């Protein structure tokens, strides 16, 4: 099942380019803002699943309307530090993560706005995102951890480099609009093996990132076990699993950025820079080489 949140706060199940409105399954769940809604819907999804499926099967399919991010302002937005082998044969790095501003999220077809801060470059980082469905602490690092998930979605972790003093700075990833998310939450039953997904990122049609989640250093269940050994996760929390830095490049004014995760979806956004700064186009080879060297002896 592919759950979407429309611009007018309806809950839909995405099907073949269209959507069936299943909001009536959640009519009794109060909300005040669009940000409140999906965490509450996700928390109740397991017990309402058959009703939602009945509605999706019997309801009228309409063309897909404009969508918000499936979780427009997650309770927490957590990101893994470099979590791919990237062609190196190094030992796994020590696992680590950080929090980003939940106000950085935008939805499909939104606009990333590059701020007037003196970044050395703004990179795209295409990532597999986990959306939490159940309140969780101390999850085991095995299949049971997946029960905490509502599902998967796509995320672009836009990253301004060279800001702050304690690199890699959290500031550079926390500007408003810097975390495009969506389009749908794809429930776990539709993704039989999250460690075998191809992730691609194109800018103006040019392929940049192209990697597979089989290269992850710490798998999805290890990500969940690690973070819940620190903190409680709540429905609607979003975890970004890290990117493969081979293929990062600049985002700049006018760019059309599109990422796809096989079996999960395609997320497209545009980029606006009021300052109209320019960087070399194509893959940032220096960044790619630096990342391959991390942990090399």
């Amino acid at each position, binding site marked *: 099942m592919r759950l979407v949140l429309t611009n007018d706060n309806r809950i839909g199940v995405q099907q073949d380019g269209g959507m069936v409105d299943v909001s009536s399954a959640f009519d009794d769940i109060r909300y005040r803002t669009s940000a409140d809604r999906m965490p509450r819907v996700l928390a109740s999804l397991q017990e309402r699943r058959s009703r939602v499926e009945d509605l999706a099967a019997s309801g009228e399919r309409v063309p897909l309307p404009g969508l918000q991010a499936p979780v427009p302002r997650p309770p927490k937005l957590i990101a893994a530090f470099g979590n791919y082998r990237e062609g190196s044969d190094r030992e796994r790095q020590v696992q680590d993560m950080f929090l980003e501003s939940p106000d950085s999220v935008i939805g499909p077809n939104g606009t990333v706005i590059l701020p007037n801060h003196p970044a050395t470059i703004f990179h795209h980082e295409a990532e597999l995102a986990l959306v939490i469905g159940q309140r969780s602490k101390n999850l085991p690092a095995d299949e049971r951890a997946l029960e905490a998930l509502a599902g998967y979605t796509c995320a672009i972790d836009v990253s301004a480099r060279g800001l*702050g003093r304690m690199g890699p700075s959290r500031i550079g990833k926390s500007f408003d609009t810097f975390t495009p998310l969506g389009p749908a939450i794809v429930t776990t039953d539709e993704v039989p093996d999250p460690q075998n997904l191809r992730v691609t990122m194109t800018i103006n049609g040019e392929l940049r990132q192209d990697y597979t989640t089989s290269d992850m250093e710490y798998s999805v269940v290890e990500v969940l076990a690690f973070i819940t050994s620190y903190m409680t996760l709540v429905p609607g929390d979003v975890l970004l699993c890290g990117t493969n830095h081979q293929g990062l490049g600049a985002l700049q004014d006018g760019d059309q950025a599109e990422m796809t995760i096989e079996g999960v979806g395609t997320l497209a956004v545009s980029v606006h820079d009021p300052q109209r700064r320019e960087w070399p186009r194509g893959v940032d080879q220096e960044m790619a080489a630096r990342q391959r060297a991390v942990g090399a002896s």
Partner: protein
Amino acid sequence: MRIAAFDDGRIGIIGNDETVVEITDLLQAYEPLGPQDLLPDLITHFDELRPELERRVAAGGGRPLDGVRLHSPLTRPSKIVCLIGNYREGTDRPIQILDLFFKSPEGISGPGDTVVLPPHQANIFHHEAEIAVVIGREAKDFSEAEAMDAVFGYVVYNDVSARGLGRSGINSFLGKSFDTFAAFGPWIVTKDEISDPQSLSVTVDVNGERRQDYSTSDMERPIPELLTYISSVMTLHPGDVICCGTNHQGLGAMQDGDAVVTTVSGIGSFTIHVRDEHERAWQRGVDRAMAEQVRAGAQHPAAPRSGGSAS
């Protein structure tokens, strides 16, 4: 005005006679979805509520403070933004580049609560006393002249910190985001009661022994400058909290059985307890090595820089 959370989900105003007058009923009008909405609603509607709040406090009839159980006045902020090293600490170094991290808002503890040390192999668990600013309205991209308009008030904060965890070379801050590690208390003081937030005394006493003792006058970047910068990055919301950083001269270990009293003059004081199932022991008193390391300009104490890895 002093605003407190007490007795599991109640909101009250502290009267001058050290009683707490409950006002939770006034907030039901805004149809909160849960207890996490009460404080943001109070902040959002404070100007219209204030006459009634003052009338109730003047009418008296509150419950004595020592007869209620206070909680963190911030139940579940949408963001906890923490400044990284923002004090001069006796050095004459140039002002450092501003930097910050986010703390898990699931990690809140408050007056009388117990901070639980996790089994993770930290080098040490430190207390970090700070003044924190509570945001009063949704705001983005304001000027320094407008910055104080975005402030609702102040609260006392202890940024409990596990050292030495995480990957080297990336300045890990995840050791500050364990559940219970964000301690706020004892109440929020509205900004009109603090004439100069840059001349307050901040102290920590552990089991009666003075550890941290510094003035907010030593801040590298004062509150309006911090807030202005942060608002150039992200939208702020009512009840978000900006923690202004600590002075590392006087940090020390928190360990099993400790009672930690954190105080900011003009705001208040609260106690947290420490529990460690593993009963690990560290040297008591001030951590001199850490203090020296920070005076010497360490960017991130007890987390060696090496290599460097993007995220």
